[in-house]
């Protein structure tokens, strides 16, 4: 029994719509109109990313004192101004920084004092520090609160949101259904086609109405929830594949062919996202994780684990921004982590769990080329518990400003439980 025979057969069996790529894009545009909606991509650096060796206070003697082995030497770092320098691995982002498309907020983080990854990530992704009753991610809450008119009375296959990994990050968990995208989409088309006959149905969805129901979103979409999930899987992934497999003759997509992404899951996911954004199918919110930043040991200076990880992060982000072309103007990448690391290095050329850390904003409308956040120095008296960078910017100030300033979403009271939006913004957007 040959696999090819099976593939042939399954295509016949399901009577599946064969790929009609050009037609699809034309249809998508006709259906939705050209999309110019703002896009938010959230990248979560899991493990507690170290701020001090990333955005370096390179003129501060104290920095070299407290990090005798892991400090990045002044001549090796990339100076931004008299106060700050980038780790050399961030070289690909320097040009973007100079163009004003990259900004960072130092000493940002959670008002909650936990040093537990688990709690700190939860609190940040649910955007509810210390509150264990919130179980909807902040991005999911945004999606549920802003179902677009075009989606009303329409089905879920709209690619409004994507989790670029098999597990939804907590920020995207919740009532709004989010498609979790497998890393490897190869060969899925046949599988989707084959099972369509078993799961297909006529159901159309009024999403807005379903979200109003207090219980499960999907309860009303289709009498049987397993059938519904199967159908959403088929339509969602098929739609995504159509977008990803479309050719690049279209003017809006032409950058892809020339843009080199580095190897690895992260860059691969960013490349898929870039294509989805440029295709104008209405992608609004996407998220992906980059794990492994918990450098208790071997953080290193310019030759350790941090160096390697910052390099692939920076290369992937830079390729993504180039790839987006003019769509960069409507796209914003927010990079977060649960906390920074202790200022003093430990005995293993690493640093333990700290408090304040750095968040990054990258995109066309970012008021970049600037390092934001109140810096209070490295004197012991200025540190949190005499050891960590203090948090001088609440992460919710940044989240709120991203939703308000970039997504044009008027954040209602209670959206961030127990938090009142500040009246004076950080000025992150032009």
């Amino acid at each position, binding site marked *: 029994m040959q696999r090819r025979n099976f593939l042939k057969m399954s295509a016949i*069996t399901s009577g599946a719509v064969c790929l009609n790529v050009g037609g699809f894009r034309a249809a998508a545009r006709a259906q939705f109109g050209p999309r110019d909606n703002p896009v938010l991509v959230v990248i979560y650096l899991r493990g507690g990313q170290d701020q001090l060796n990333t955005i370096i206070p390179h003129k501060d003697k104290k920095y070299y004192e407290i990090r005798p082995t892991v400090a990045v030497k002044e001549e090796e770092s990339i100076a931004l101004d008299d106060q700050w320098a980038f780790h050399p691995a961030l070289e690909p982002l320097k040009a973007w920084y100079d163009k004003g498309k990259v900004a960072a907020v130092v000493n940002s983080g959670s008002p909650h004092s936990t040093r537990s990854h688990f709690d700190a990530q939860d609190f940040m992704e649910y955007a509810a520090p210390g509150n264990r009753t919130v179980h909807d991610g902040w991005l999911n809450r945004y999606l549920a609160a802003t179902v677009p008119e075009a989606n009303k009375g329409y089905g879920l296959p709209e690619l409004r949101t994507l989790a670029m990994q098999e597990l939804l990050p907590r920020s995207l968990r919740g009532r709004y*259904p989010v498609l979790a995208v497998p890393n490897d989409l190869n060969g899925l088309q046949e*599988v989707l086609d084959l099972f369509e006959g078993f799961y297909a149905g006529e159901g159309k969805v009024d999403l807005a109405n379903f979200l109003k129901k207090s219980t499960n979103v*999907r309860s009303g979409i289709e009498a049987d929830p*397993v059938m519904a999930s199967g159908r*959403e899987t088929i339509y969602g992934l098929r739609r995504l594949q159509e977008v990803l497999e479309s050719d690049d003759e279209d003017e809006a997509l032409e950058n892809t062919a020339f843009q080199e992404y580095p190897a690895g899951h992260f860059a691969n996911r960013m490349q898929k996202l870039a294509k989805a954004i440029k295709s104008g199918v209405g992608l609004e919110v996407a998220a992906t994780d980059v794990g492994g930043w918990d450098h208790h040991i071997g953080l290193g200076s310019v030759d350790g684990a941090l*160096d390697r990880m910052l390099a692939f992060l920076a290369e992937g982000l830079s390729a993504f921004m180039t790839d987006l072309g003019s769509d960069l103007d409507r796209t914003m990448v927010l990079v977060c982590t649960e906390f920074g690391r202790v200022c003093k290095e430990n005995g293993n050329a690493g640093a333990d769990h700290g408090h304040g850390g750095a968040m990054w904003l990258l995109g066309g409308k970012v008021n970049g080329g600037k390092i934001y956040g109140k810096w209070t120095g490295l004197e012991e008296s200025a540190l949190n518990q005499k050891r960590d960078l203090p948090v001088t910017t609440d992460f919710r100030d940044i989240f709120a400003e991203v939703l308000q300033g970039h997504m044009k979403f008027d954040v209602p009271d209670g959206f961030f439980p127990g938090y009142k939006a500040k009246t004076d913004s950080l000025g992150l957007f032009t």
Partner: protein
Amino acid sequence: MELFTRRTIGCTILCSIFLTSLAFAQDEQQATNFGRQAREGTPSLLRDPNKPLDQRERIHHLLSRLTFGATDEAINEVEKIGIDVWLKQQLEGEVQETDALKARLAKIPSLTMSNQEIVQKYRVPVPPLLRNPTPEQRKARAEARATHEVPKNDLKDTVLMLAVYGENQLKEVVCDFWRNHLNIDISKGNVKYYATEYERDVIRGEAFGKFSAMLNKEARHPAMLVYLDNYLSRAAPRTDLVAAAKQALFKTRDFGAAMDAVDIAKMKGINENYARELMELHTLGVDNYYTQEDVITVANILTGWTLQQDPKKPIVFEFRRDMHASEPHLLLKKRIPAFPRNPEMEGQYVLRMLAMHEGTAKFLAYKLCRYLVSDDPPEELVNRVAKVYRRKKTDMREMYKAVLKDEEFYNPKHYQSKFKRPFEFVASALRVTNAEIEFTEGIHGALILMSEPIYQCEDPTGYYDQADAWRDPGVMAPRWSFSLGLGLEQIRGVRIPDSYWEELKPGNPVQWKETLTKRILPGGCTEKTSDALDAVIAKYARFNPTPKQMGGYIVGILLGSPEFQRQ
């Protein structure tokens, strides 16, 4: 007879002496709230939910919930011996395992090792990862890392093998329940070196015992102490200890051990992590009966519950008096007696008190009913089971019996109403196809794609067992890939034995379909599934397939059908 027992775990200094002095905590009636809204299940596609189950359906239901995959064959067997006899055997948990399984597990050395032996053998030093490593550096690093993974992979394989091939299916099912109820994550720090013993002694060792004993064991187990940070929890900082711990341990170059010890010494005070989860997840249920002050009280009482830190000695529980906060304690509005000679007893007293608490009885009964009966179990059933739990002094076998002997268990609306978790889906697919597993990478890989790798739930809640935690758009794709992969033998190291196809008569696709449907979906399938299957077969007939070729497709499709996702 348990398959991988080792030395009996040392002295379980159970505070049975307190039992007499400890009256049931009779708190005023409090509305029980498990912090979750009612969950909808996945009602059967096939039958009227009001029509009572016939005998065969009752057996099918029983086997759907108490085994990893009910087959037609298994239903026939139970029909022969009767439900009661089958249940009695299974509740003993001592059915003889097959020689094949025994031989297979005997080949895994780490299963019978102590924590210390595992650490000594597998936790070898790893050189740091550089941006441009030489091939030698790369290789040395890869090898060291692979060695670290051995005990963890052995454990995952064992759990999988027992679920698929174990004869004591009920035991495997309840172990799965407790593994999630008292979750640890082998991805966190040193937990992976201690998890084997945890599975052996805490989960398997106590699955038919008393919850009070299980609770006492998990609270003291190095895997849990590290996973929920209680090993760090201490009364006050001691800078002298930090220096001493560093000196003593960095010399050994064992960073793993050094990290534990130095972290303990450095801790600035109590760590609430375990104390909170103990009440929220292991006993009372979220925000039931206890307050934040109670969390702090329990954290204080459990200060000094840590692990022995000398890498030359066994890695076991140790009570450290110098880390313990000795204060008078008031918990759940009750005074906890002081034990000045042995303050460790305070903690044991509290664990006993929590195990016997009515809130714990209700919470455990609720979760067990949710797991075995319905995503939204009837309150009356939960109350009946909770009563048995307290009357039988936290005896879990009695609790299982209370659920399984209750007529509510067979209420037709629960029939096929639970959505299989990925682990249940994978194990049952392997079971109903009599799959032979040579290597497991492909299976574990599929479980990662489905987001339920074994023993790797990061969240202390454990993996959820309700449908709505698993039905996100996108999740069916890896299930379908796995289904077809299994049917077509495209999963590396996994195959369906030739004997599986023997009953398929050459040139008779209708018989193939009927035979395989009966085997994989003993409850039958919907017309829609049947029609879709016919369509596939009709198109396929052109290629003149052999029974095995065609059968592979039919199996793959049946495993991916909406019916097979339920139990």
